[in-house]
């Protein structure tokens, strides 16, 4: 087949599947949370309540899309688009299977780090442009939280880069043919998981939008589809971190018997369910606890992981 055509099909396929999954996650999250809390959750619209998402979508599209008169209009409109764009761009370098990948570059992990640090702008600018003190506080919290946790997210990933000898995600997956990196890099895996939760601002790290203190944090003033963009952006981030966890630490598409695409989907779904379970199980820390924990524990641990991994790799090569 024509390679350009194939690339376009792969690109559209990834886009459609990821966006559908992101909106489907709203239903999955509500059902799973309800299950763990001994309730039913949305079960009326369609089979198992699956059409609830569709109903919510229709509702959100018909809501008044209001921009407050005191807001900074261009930045207010731009902010929710940034998060969706940066997360979707990152999917371009993720190898789902040997065939289903848009671009394989030798700086793929750095590209992911760059896009996730650009994603910070979305919440920061959303909070600032709303011109509301609760939004501003949420934006400030988001900026300091995401910047700090990004530092050791990068450092934690470097362990896999050292073992594979490349920044390319495909090379990292292929280096896990004999052993998943979760075994030699268990500390790195735990650090990356925690940093990933903080990056997507999911509970227990959802302090930028802690509703008991800040109304809704950085998106207090948002309504209609602009709020929907923040919402979809968050779920896209959950999918992205789950895919990356399976690619970097759990062998990506590799596995016995089943075809590669099934393995990557199964691994990703496992981590998505874990994210939802965390939301159901964990309380929210105080903000200063979050920051001191990040800088005083996570950063030294990731540096230690980096140094030890480097030493072992060097000793093995001798």
């Amino acid at each position, binding site marked *: 087949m024509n390679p350009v055509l194939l690339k376009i099909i792969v690109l559209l396929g990834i886009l459609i599947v990821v966006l559908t999954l992101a909106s489907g996650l709203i239903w999955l999250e509500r059902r799973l949370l309800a299950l763990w809390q001994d309730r039913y959750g949305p079960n009326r619209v369609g089979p198992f309540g699956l059409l609830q998402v569709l109903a919510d979508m229709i509702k959100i599209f018909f809501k008044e899309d209001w921009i407050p008169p005191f807001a900074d209009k261009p*930045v207010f409109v731009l902010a929710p688009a940034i998060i969706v764009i940066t997360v979707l761009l990152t999917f371009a370098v993720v190898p789902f299977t040997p065939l289903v990948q848009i671009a394989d570059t030798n700086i793929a992990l750095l590209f992911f*780090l*760059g*896009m996730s640090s650009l994603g910070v*702008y979305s919440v920061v600018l959303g909070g600032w442009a709303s011109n509301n003190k609760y939004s501003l506080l949420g934006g400030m919290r988001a*900026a300091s939280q995401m910047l700090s946790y990004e530092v050791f997210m990068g450092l934690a990933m470097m362990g896999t880069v050292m073992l594979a000898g490349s920044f390319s995600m495909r090379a990292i997956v292929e280096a896990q043919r004999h052993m998943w990196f979760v075994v030699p890099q268990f500390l790195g895996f735990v650090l990356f998981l925690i940093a990933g939760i903080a990056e997507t601002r999911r509970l227990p790290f959802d302090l930028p939008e802690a509703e008991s203190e800040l109304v809704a944090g950085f998106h207090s003033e948002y309504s209609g589809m602009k709020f929907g963009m923040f919402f979809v952006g968050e779920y896209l981030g959950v999918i992205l971190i789950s895919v990356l966890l399976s690619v970097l630490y759990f062998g990506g598409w590799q596995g016995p018997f089943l075809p590669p695409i099934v393995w990557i989907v199964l691994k990703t779904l496992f981590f998505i369910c874990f994210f939802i379970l965390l939301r159901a199980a964990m309380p929210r820390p105080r903000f200063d606890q979050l920051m001191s924990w990040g800088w005083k524990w996570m950063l030294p641990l990731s540096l230690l992981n980096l140094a030890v991994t480097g030493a072992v790799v060097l000793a093995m090569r001798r």
Partner: protein
Amino acid sequence: MEAIFYIAAIVAVLATVLTVTRLNPVHALLYLTVSLLAVAVVFYTLGAPFMAALEVVIYAGAIMVLFVFVVMLLNLGRHTVDLERSWLSPGAFVGPAILAAILVGEVSYLLARSGTLTPPVAEVGPHQVALALYGPYLLGVELASFLLLGALVGAYHVGSRRAQGRTTVGSRSDRTGLASGGDLVRTGADRPSGAA
């Protein structure tokens, strides 16, 4: 690749001009971010993908976010826009314009002398950059890390002294029972900035 280079370069120049002329500081910072991203694309087209990634991660993603963060904390409103408007008179651009014209003249002279454009250089991946940094330029890396460590210790020193001062004030007002609630809110809001 050449067309992409020229488009990115034009975007970079336009965004930088807009950075200088914007009255609202946050809008100016956003244009500066766009300019840095355009420079990253320029690096990529010149065969330095690692530099391009670092440009996005460090400049656009970390340093500029901190700038935006600080500007947000200052809470600059309409007053600043008026102030900027009074400062940005056309006369203020004469000096920079002369200096920039000299640079443009030099660049066009150099381009005219070399005749053809530089041929596409070989791609420099992360491997070569790392080998160069930890080989011939090791001393530079060490010096830069000294500087960063010094800045880190200094920032910690300043931050910790200020935090101590705040706790004594807070405890005193708690003892007297005056406005302890307001004080709690204030320290809570200040804390993230101190930690970051």
